Structures are given as structure tokens and as C-alpha cells.
């Protein structure tokens, strides 16, 4: 049943036209009762669907602290933490802060994943941060070599990317791979030029001589 609930949570209820409002303020206080009713076939799946949608998905998008979220939802502090934790696991909430800083939860209606592609790598290695123009996710190995090629193709649209990319050369391990990819895209000259700039402005590894020409 728990599995069914979790699955349903991330779905939109198609029959929300009904004006159903649960009399119970929190899902946790009602959950045991709900399970027992479902087990005895007193309520059906549609009811659970609507109930879960109403209590979970009808969330206001935006930034909250635990206190403001609890106030907004009419929950106790612990219930709010539990709900936020569950939302976080399902990707509907992201958290920043912690420790000395107050935790700020950003809630969205669609599940959000943390991008791990080009912009993530660029901002990780470069002191000049670039705002991502799109979300980039990678399945597989994505290193500085690929990022340099992607960056050169993207820098035509955004000049700041080029400046930030200079710091990627410090993390190039496979020069052959870099130049193979550059050759395929026809941007070998650009890579060499960028490397020249990187050598002047940043501390980076020496490129093998055979790639200089």
C-alpha cells in the first residue's frame, strides 16, 4: 500500500473537480486509518488517489522554512519536517542551508533533479560562475574534455562561458580524447586558441607537443 501511495503521489489527480476536503489536518494522523479502510475495501484506489493528491500535491510553490511551511499547511513542526523530508525524497523539494544557517526548502510541482552536466562541471571548477541556459544531465562519464567541446559550441551564444572554460584545462587528463572530439566537431583550432588563453590567465597542465600544430 505504501508503494501504491508513493507512486500515486507524483501523479496528478484527473478527477480533482470534486470538492473533497479531508477533515483530518495531517496525513500522518490519518494514514493508519486510511490503510485499514483500504485493506477492508471500504475505500477504493480513487479515494486514496484524491486524498494523497490533495494533501501532498496541492502545495504552494516557493521557498519556505519549516516554520512558514508548517503555518501554511496547518501542521505541527514535526509533521511539517516529515512531509518536507518525503517531498525531498521524491524530488519535489530542494533544500539549502543547514548547520548554522536556517534550512530553506524550495518546493516545486514537478520533480526537480540536480543537473550533473556541463554547467555543473563548469561552475565546480571555475571561480566565475555561469547561469545555466538549460538543465544538463549526463548518464555516463562526463569529464573536462567533453565539457571543453560542449563549452566551445555553447560559447557562441554566451561569451561568459568562454572565460569560465579556461579553468577546465587544469582538469584535462586525456588530451587525445579532447582532440579527437574537437576534430569531429571541426574546432581543433579553437581548442588550441583557448588553451593558449588558459595558459596565460590560469595555471593549467601542459599540453603534449604533438597536439600543438
Amino acid at each position, binding site marked *: 500500500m505504501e508503494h501504491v501511495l508513493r507512486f500515486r503521489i507524483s501523479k*496528478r489527480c484527473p478527477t480533482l473537480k470534486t470538492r473533497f476536503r479531508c477533515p483530518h489536518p495531517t496525513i500522518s494522523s490519518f494514514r493508519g486509518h486510511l490503510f485499514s479502510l483500504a485493506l477492508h475495501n471500504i475505500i477504493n484506489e480513487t479515494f486514496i488517489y484524491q486524498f494523497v493528491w490533495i494533501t501532498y500535491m496541492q502545495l504552494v510553490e516557493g521557498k519556505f522554512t519549516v516554520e512558514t511551511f508548517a503555518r501554511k499547511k496547518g501542521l505541527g513542526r514535526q509533521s511539517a519536517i516529515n512531509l518536507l523530508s518525503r517531498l525531498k525524497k521524491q524530488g519535489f523539494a530542494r533544500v539549502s542551508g543547514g548547520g548554522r544557517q536556517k534550512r530553506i526548502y524550495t518546493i516545486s510541482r514537478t520533480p526537480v533533479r540536480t543537473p550533473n552536466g556541463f554547467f555543473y562541471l563548469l561552475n565546480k571548477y571555475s571561480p566565475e560562475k555561469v547561469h545555466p541556459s538549460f538543465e544538463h*544531465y*549526463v*548518464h*555516463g562519464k*562526463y569529464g573536462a574534455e567533453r565539457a571543453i567541446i560542449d563549452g566551445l559550441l555553447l560559447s557562441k551564444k554566451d561569451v561568459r562561458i568562454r572565460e569560465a572554460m579556461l579553468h577546465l584545462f587544469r582538469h584535462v587528463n586525456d588530451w587525445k580524447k579532447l582532440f579527437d572530439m574537437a576534430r569531429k566537431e571541426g574546432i581543433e583550432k579553437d581548442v588550441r586558441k583557448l588553451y593558449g588563453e588558459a595558459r596565460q590567465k590560469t595555471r593549467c597542465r601542459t599540453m603534449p607537443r604533438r597536439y600543438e600544430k
Partner: protein
Amino acid sequence: MINTQDQEELFGLIAEYLSEDLVCLAIGGTAMMFSGYKNATKDIDLVFENEKTRRAFIKAIEQLGYTEKALFGVYDEKRRAHEGKPKMFSRGDERFDLFVENVFGFHLDIKNAEITQRYDFIGKKELVVKVLPKEYLILLKAITGRDKDEEDIESIILMEKEIDWQFIVDEAIKQRNSNQWLIYDLEEAMLKLKKKTFIKKQYFDALYKAEEEKKK
């Protein structure tokens, strides 16, 4: 049906079987799943830059046991007769709809398209899947006009507060010559959506005006 995780794993697997690096655009249910608007889809809709890249993709999925199917029963007659129709491949419940350059006449620039997300599946070769903005998804859903497309548009509209209808209308008008029923399809979809959400009259007027101009 295929869910988000299965879809990503499948793309990862296909990347292992590709003979060359490919770039494609995800539209329809696939794009909706990547964007988080839904959890499962019947078909994976992809648009390729040219016939060569589509053939390379087909070669890979054929090795995985996908076989070509007829469009009958999925697309109506006018769409089946259109030159921008897809090639359909299926294996069990999963289905690929593979387009080249355009979706029933609606052209998509794969290299320079404005995208919101990009997924790189790096295996033996690299499969890059680009995801279009929600406005394009709505417009393309209106064009493909399959069973669940209306529901999908509704899902996007209910989840997104800000839809740039002006952009959708402008894009449809811009490409009306390549697909003669494009404006009609969009208007039909918008009329249905009017019951669910507020769409300004000016957008309908712009469509009617464009159609009149075309007739003249």
C-alpha cells in the same frame, strides 16, 4: 508503457549499441517525462536531424528487438498520408515514433533549437537527447492529435502557471505553410483548453486573421 527510470535506462542501453554519436530532440510524452509532467508514456517520440541519423538509431534499436509497425490505428488518415510522418518501432508495450527534421510538417532545428534540458547518454557512443520548452510540447501535441495528447496538454497547463500563448500562436503562424491543418489543429486544441484555463481572445483572433490572410 514505460516510466521515467526505465526510459533513461533504455536510452543508456541504446547508447551502447549505436554505431555513431547522435543528437535528437525529444517531443511528446518523452519530453514530458524528462520535464516531470508525467510518470509514464506509451510512446517515445524523437526527432532526428536527417535520415542518416535516424537509420543509425533504428539499427541500434533493431538489435534490441524492436520491429517496425504500421501507423494504422495510431495516427489518422491525413497524418498517415503526410510526408512528415514518423516510423514506428515497438517491442512489447514500448514504442518509438521516430521523425526526421519535422513533425507532420512542423520543422524543428535540432542543432540550434532553444532547449530547456539536455540529457547525454554516454555508452559506446554518445546519445544526446534535447528537450524542448513547454510551449513547443503543447504545439506539437496539438499537431500529433493522438488519443492521450489532449490529456497531456491539460497536464502541462494545470502544472504550469505561465504559458506563453503568444509564442505558440506565432510559431504556428510562422509554419502554417508547411502544414495546412496546423492552425486548425491548434485552434481546436485551444478551444478545448478554454474550458480548463483562461486563454485570451487575442490569440484566437491572431489565428483567424492568419488563416484569412492565407486564403487571400
